[in-house]
């Protein structure tokens, strides 16, 4: 069944149809929340909250990209989480083992299709990116996550964070420059494959 038909059914209160949409988008929403919040538990809470809000406000959806609409709800949920947990310390990205040592390549990072070397490389890249994202102010982080990681266009990001298009352009440029500066520290540590890819794409 196509997405629009599922949305229409869900708008009539069909929870089963909505849950099929949840399965299709839960990874997208969870990853967006994870990059914004930098904590898996908080990201899971925000994702659940976002789907609940989306179900309740589904009649407000008037077409357009459903992914962008859902990302808007998860952005709101992330802002709520950030406000709620402002003073609460968060769980580090790399969990500690029983001896308090940092586990370098946690099990939940593993991509079952990747070789151990690739998994390690991915973990290093993720660590570098998340570290630099966390160093950004929340408003900049949200914009860069939605635009560069989730691939929304400027107008969709502007609607999601409710700021003018010009502000999005400005925040995105500043966030990219700061991230590049921060990633510079990791540059030599980053796996060669990623460096080459980014050079190629550049």
């Amino acid at each position, binding site marked *: 069944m196509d997405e629009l038909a599922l949305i229409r059914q869900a708008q009539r209160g069909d929870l089963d149809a*909505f849950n099929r949409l949840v399965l299709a988008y839960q*990874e997208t929403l969870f990853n967006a929340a994870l990059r914004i919040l930098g904590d898996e538990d908080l990201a899971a809470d925000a*994702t*659940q909250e976002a789907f609940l809000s989306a179900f309740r406000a589904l009649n407000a959806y008037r077409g357009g990209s459903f992914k962008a609409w859902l990302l808007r709800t998860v952005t709101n949920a992330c802002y709520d989480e950030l406000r709620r947990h402002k003073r609460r310390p968060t769980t580090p990205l790399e969990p500690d083992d029983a001896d308090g040592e940092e586990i370098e390549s946690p099990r939940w990072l593993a991509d079952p299709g990747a070789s151990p070397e690739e998994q390690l490389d991915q973990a290093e890249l993720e660590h570098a990116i998340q570290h630099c994202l966390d160093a950004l102010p929340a408003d900049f982080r949200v914009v860069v996550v939605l635009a560069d990681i989730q691939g929304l266009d400027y107008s969709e990001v502007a609607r999601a964070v409710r700021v003018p298009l010009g502000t999005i352009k400005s925040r995105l440029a500043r966030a*990219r420059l700061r991230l590049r500066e921060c990633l510079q520290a990791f540059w030599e540590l980053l796996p060669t494959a990623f460096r080459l890819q980014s*050079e190629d794409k550049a």
Partner: protein
Amino acid sequence: MNHKPTFRDAEKISAYLDGQLSEAEARRVAARLESDPQLAEVAQKLRQARALLRQTPRRRVPRNFLLTPKIAGLKPPVPRAVPVFSWASAVTLLLFLFTLVGNLLGSLNYGAAAPERLLVAAPPSNIGGSPEGESPKLAGPTLQNTPTAEAEAYALVGPSESADVSAQALPAEQTQPEPPVNPWLIVWPALSALSLGIAGFSRWLSWRKFKKQLSKL
């Protein structure tokens, strides 16, 4: 002459990389990037940041985020008939109260009018003892206007007992039969109860259907 790139330049280049500039603006930025190595360096940094972010590994979800009816706070849908019958019930109840109040007021009016008639009807009993010429005009029309209750009383007691008419008139009026109960006083509550019953039954049917659907999930 090239100058040190400003943040405004970086902002333009960033939008240029995303294809967010107008055609004319994009041409201008492209030309400047060709001729200005400092700007080209900024563009390179922005591209690298963007390219790395696009390679951010995706995490698998730690669990499913499916909504249960309890989480979603779903309630059984209200059948269309329920509001109709609920309103019908309320309306009939109001009509019942209206009828009841109307009846009460009617009986009060009747009760208030009775002594007046008695007072007016009293002169015939005192005809013998009263001085002649005492308001005969008053007695005449009053008797004519005497309500049917007295007349009926006469008819009921019959001519043999009508000798002491004035003496009998009072008890006859006091013991007159109760007026028949207004039938609407029974119909309205019955309709109200029926409407309420139908509304409740429809809701119960809907709730039972909803529970069955939930058990399938």
